[in-house]
């Protein structure tokens, strides 16, 4: 059909030139250059901050002779609070600023059409975009999570907050990257469906906050199998349970029957004693998660979130292949 003379020489010349960064990779990195640099800057800054705080803390503890002696109070200042807040909000920030506009911006500005009328299919383009987005989120969060775990883990007994609280559990180990990936994937999906950047960012923010509430209220505390410890009614909880997370507390009789904690809360001590006597209550029973379960629970949680990420990603690719973005 077309009889245009082909400029074979120029084409071959280009093919032989080594290109480390070409095709869609170049395009995606160029388009998201500022965002990539911003994420990089945030990660570097936060990393240095964590290292600095850890350094401050170890110096303070060393000076105080910890752990042989009591740690001074307060052991950490406001900075630690800000750091946990920053890490806690990082997944939402990434979802809103990386996820939501990822496709929506190209839909809104028409550049999705520009790219997909070159010689690349929508699916390849989306794969490149998602690849950049997920890699950036994963790498950034993995670094910060590793550093914060390195900060928190050895000093957890002197730092405020139990390990099953969101600010620790969701910001250490595999949880920070997994949560950020899931929320970002949700942001991408919301953006793809809404096709408007601002609307997508607002909706992603609302979704992320809602998802974290649901996660904290309904899911986080069900990720493991609770254990039980029984100790005498007039005794103290053994010291090795200090960093356990207490789920519930009962009283029990010698034959193992459990009663609610307040079953014998009577008006007078006499009545209480009579009640305890009558029911044969001899033990305190505590339902708890041991700190040794933390890693397993974090991986279980991360698994759920990664599965959710995979589902959302599959949906995005399927949606885009059956209709134009």
């Amino acid at each position: 059909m077309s009889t245009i003379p082909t400029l074979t020489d120029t084409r071959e010349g280009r093919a032989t030139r080594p290109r480390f960064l070409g095709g869609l990779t170049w395009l995606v990195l160029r388009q998201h250059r500022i965002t990539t640099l911003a994420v990089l800057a945030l990660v570097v800054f936060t990393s240095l901050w964590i290292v600095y705080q850890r350094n401050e803390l170890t110096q303070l503890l060393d000076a105080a002779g910890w752990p042989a002696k009591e740690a001074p109070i307060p052991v950490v200042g406001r900075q630690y609070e800000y750091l946990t807040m920053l890490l806690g909000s990082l997944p939402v920030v990434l979802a809103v600023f990386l996820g939501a506009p990822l496709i929506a911006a190209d839909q809104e500005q028409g550049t999705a059409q520009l790219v997909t009328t070159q010689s690349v299919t929508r699916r390849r383009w989306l794969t490149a975009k998602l690849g950049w987005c997920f890699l950036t989120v994963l790498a950034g969060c993995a670094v910060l999570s590793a550093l914060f775990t390195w900060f928190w883990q050895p000093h957890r007994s002197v730092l405020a907050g139990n390990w099953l609280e969101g600010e620790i559990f969701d910001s250490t180990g595999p949880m920070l990257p997994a949560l950020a990936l899931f929320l970002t994937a949700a942001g991408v999906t919301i953006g793809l469906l809404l096709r408007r950047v601002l609307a997508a960012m607002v909706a992603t923010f609302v979704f992320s906050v809602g998802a974290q509430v649901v996660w904290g209220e309904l899911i986080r505390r069900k990720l493991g199998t609770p254990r039980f410890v029984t100790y005498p009614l007039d005794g103290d909880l053994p010291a090795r349970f200090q960093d356990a997370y207490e789920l519930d507390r009962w009283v029990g009789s010698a034959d193992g029957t459990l009663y609610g904690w307040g079953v014998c809360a009577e008006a007078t001590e006499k009545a209480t004693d009579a009640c305890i006597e009558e029911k044969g209550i001899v033990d305190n029973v505590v339902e708890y998660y041991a700190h040794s379960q933390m890693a397993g629970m974090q991986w279980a949680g991360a698994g759920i979130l990664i599965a959710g990420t995979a589902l959302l990603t599959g949906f995005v690719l399927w949606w885009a292949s059956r209709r134009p973005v």
Partner: protein
Amino acid sequence: MAETSTPERVSGTWALEARGLGKRYRRGWALRDCSFRLPAGRICGLVGPNGAGKSTLLGLATRQVEPTEGELRVFGVPVGDSAVMPRFAFLGQDKPLFKRFTVAETLRLGRELNPGWDAAAAERIVRSGDIPAHARIGTLSGGQRTRVAFALAFGKRPDLLLLDEPMSDLDPLARDEMGTLLMAEAVERGTTVMMSSHMLAELEDMCDYLLVVSQGRVRMAGDADALVPAHTLVTGVTRDGSLPSALDGHTVIENRVQGRQFQAMVRPGGPLSADWQVSEPSLEEVLLAYLRSPDAPALYTPGARVEAEGTQAA
């Protein structure tokens, strides 16, 4: 260029070939039962009122829209096959470009994403518009941006160039410049062009092929040179206030009765009555008559019509 198309040619010589093509959105059919052929090497004007289905048709041809029914082939390759992608280039209505990219980066985008990129041609088009390579797209004027979009389209070295109202937002000077550029590049390479436009004068100057759509259906398709002469503007005396029965042998596209006089746009089915005044209509008059009369039968010149399934010429 304006060689007469014959249906006997192989399918590869059809730049576009639609068979029963249709697209339904939630609000209804945007395009329906659309069958036509566009021979390679032609400059085709796509005409129709707003909402006629022009953009849908261009969207179908550029893989931006999935057809609900029927099929569309680009140089014989079904449009759903990604192998058609290097064959066409598309210039949308608002010519989207990355605003923060420089001109050089925009051309690099073309190079990175297209296997047969013609850097020399793209750079020539940009240079002849005196656009600095390091200027950001966001700082360019509308005409300059259109020129960069053209460079991107021609750098892809397409066999088929699809344009959706490419000049609509340009001032007269830039429009003239882009029109000249488009024609020069297309003729030099033998690129098939399909462009939608509202400007009939623009179409008359540039196009040697026409595809007229209205209300989602093809109204007219074929050689511009053959479509217009197929029509005659007839003026005569009415019989009892209505059209004379002598018109029955001809296809009346549109008629207007004024007192004792009538005027009709007809496709003569034989010799016309000597009582009538006849004149050859302009392209504009023919187009308007078809657009105003959605019930008039569609007109295809030989070759533009796609016959029933299975009779595709070998």
